[in-house]
């Protein structure tokens, strides 16, 4: 008599407990998924929110920006950078080197066309212009959140406009840092400094003029998409059965390319690996050592790139990219033969 109601009660208690436990979890999960899709969940005064504002502005506004690229050891390079979105929502972008014989890159949607002296014009299938600035970072700053820390520093005046400064630091100090100044009003880039571990300046982009307009620049109306050069397609390269594996890849970096290739200048065959974290791209070259070819270990900087060449086991390894020499060395030393 007594047992059955007790059983019923206990089962009810268990049920309600279960429901109590699951419902909040479910709500939590829903909230998480919604925040991931909207991207606007950061507090409005956080560095992340500013970078989201920047990437939105870079993709959606009609603007004309002139900027100067400064690197150690070379002359300053002035560029003109235009961007527009037409009525159909098609993105158009132009990048023009203003000194010397010139170099012009035009992007219409996912087609990037290069016009350069001494080279026949060609096009690539890509959604960014891989130019003098890290376009991928402008469009996808979220990609850096795994390996970099964003700090909102303060306001200052850059290129005659109110600017918000953001400092971007590698969490494990394996890469260089960035100081970025964004326009207070539009969120577009006004200045960018790349600095090394002792806070020394490595590379600088300084905007000298910024105009945001309602309509795209008339330059884009003159482009006839049909007249642009053909897209070069690199056939999918045969899967590479490499004997070597990389043991250490800095956090946030991934292998985005790996193949065997012949160097254009020397004709030597090397295995090529490209690492990228969405801000810097690093090239790693592996070359099996030839018997009578001693090679000196060497580390140095070429403009703002670090170049490291070491002899490691049976390989000559060369690492090039905008990263500290210690990290380049760690990557090179971690390469081992697969057993």
């Amino acid at each position: 008599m007594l047992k059955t109601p007790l059983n019923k009660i206990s089962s009810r208690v268990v049920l309600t407990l279960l429901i109590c436990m699951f419902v909040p979890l479910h709500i939590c999960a829903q909230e998480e998924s919604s925040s991931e899709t909207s991207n606007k969940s950061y507090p409005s005064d956080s560095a992340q929110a500013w970078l989201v504002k920047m990437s939105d502005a870079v993709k959606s506004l009609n603007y004309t920006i002139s900027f100067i690229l400064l690197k150690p050891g070379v002359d300053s390079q002035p560029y003109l950078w235009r961007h527009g979105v037409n009525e159909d929502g098609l993105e158009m972008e132009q990048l023009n080197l203003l000194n010397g014989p010139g170099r012009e890159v035009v992007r219409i949607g996912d087609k990037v066309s290069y016009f350069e002296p001494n080279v026949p014009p060609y096009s690539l299938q890509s959604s960014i212009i891989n130019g003098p600035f890290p376009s991928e970072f402008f469009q996808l700053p979220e990609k850096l959140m795994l390996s970099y820390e964003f700090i909102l520093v303060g306001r200052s005046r850059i290129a005659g406009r109110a600017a918000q400064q953001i400092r971007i630091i590698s969490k494990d100090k394996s890469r260089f840092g960035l100081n970025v100044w964004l326009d207070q009003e539009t969120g577009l880039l006004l200045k960018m400094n790349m600095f090394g571990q002792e806070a020394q300046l490595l590379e600088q982009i300084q905007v000298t003029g910024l105009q945001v307009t309602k309509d795209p620049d008339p330059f884009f109306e003159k482009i006839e998409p049909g007249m642009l050069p053909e897209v070069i397609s690199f056939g999918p390269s045969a899967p590479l059965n490499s004997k070597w594996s990389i043991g250490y890849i800095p956090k946030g970096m991934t292998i985005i390319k790996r193949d065997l290739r012949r160097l254009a200048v020397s004709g030597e065959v090397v295995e090529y690996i490209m690492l990228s974290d969405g801000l810097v791209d690093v090239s790693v070259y592996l070359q099996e050592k030839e018997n009578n070819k001693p090679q000196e270990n060497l580390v140095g900087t070429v403009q703002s790139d670090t170049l490291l060449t070491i002899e490691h086991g049976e390989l000559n390894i060369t690492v090039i990219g905008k990263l500290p020499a210690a990290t380049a060395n760690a990557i090179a030393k971690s390469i081992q033969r697969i057993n």
Partner: protein
Amino acid sequence: MSQKLENLSALVDGENGVSSSSNNLVLDAVKNDTELQLKWKSYHLIRDGLRQELPANINFDIADKIAQAIEAEPAILAPKKTWRDLPLVSNIVPFAKQGGQMAIAASVAVAMIIGVQQLNQADVNQPFNAAPPIPGIQGGLSPVSFDQTRAIPNSGAVEQKRRINAYMTDHKQQLRFKTIESVNDKSAIMNQDIKNQEAQSDIVENTPQ
């Protein structure tokens, strides 16, 4: 007091914005209050620490050191006027000085001429100073092989320069040909990555329970 501290903290963080009047009030308060000055120092130190902007070695009390250095400096008084500062004399003195300089220059030139002459004579008079004839093979190296050993590192350097050049050119080319597929796909992949990471971190947190 706490309001004062809050104002100071906001100023250090750059949160007061452009309104300079409130900033000036805080600054005046700091000037007249030693406790606030100490806070000012520690707030900046904390801020730099949080932003990881601290220098390798921190020098506290640099102002005190400068003040001490200024104390220790001997006082320089304005020089007294002398007869040299009279208008006529002051015009003549530079002439005299220039004359003196000319005399010095002339005597140096004479000394040099004499010296050079003596040196030349010495050379002529001492034939033993000439380099001794090279006796065949010395220390296992003939002059010819010496030249070769010098040439090898040179060609090695050229070779290395060529190799570096080849790698740099290829690196630039690779960056140029790097293509990014449609941004939407990429962001989807990235979201997945973040999700995975979060999932992993959840597991790590849950295991102790």
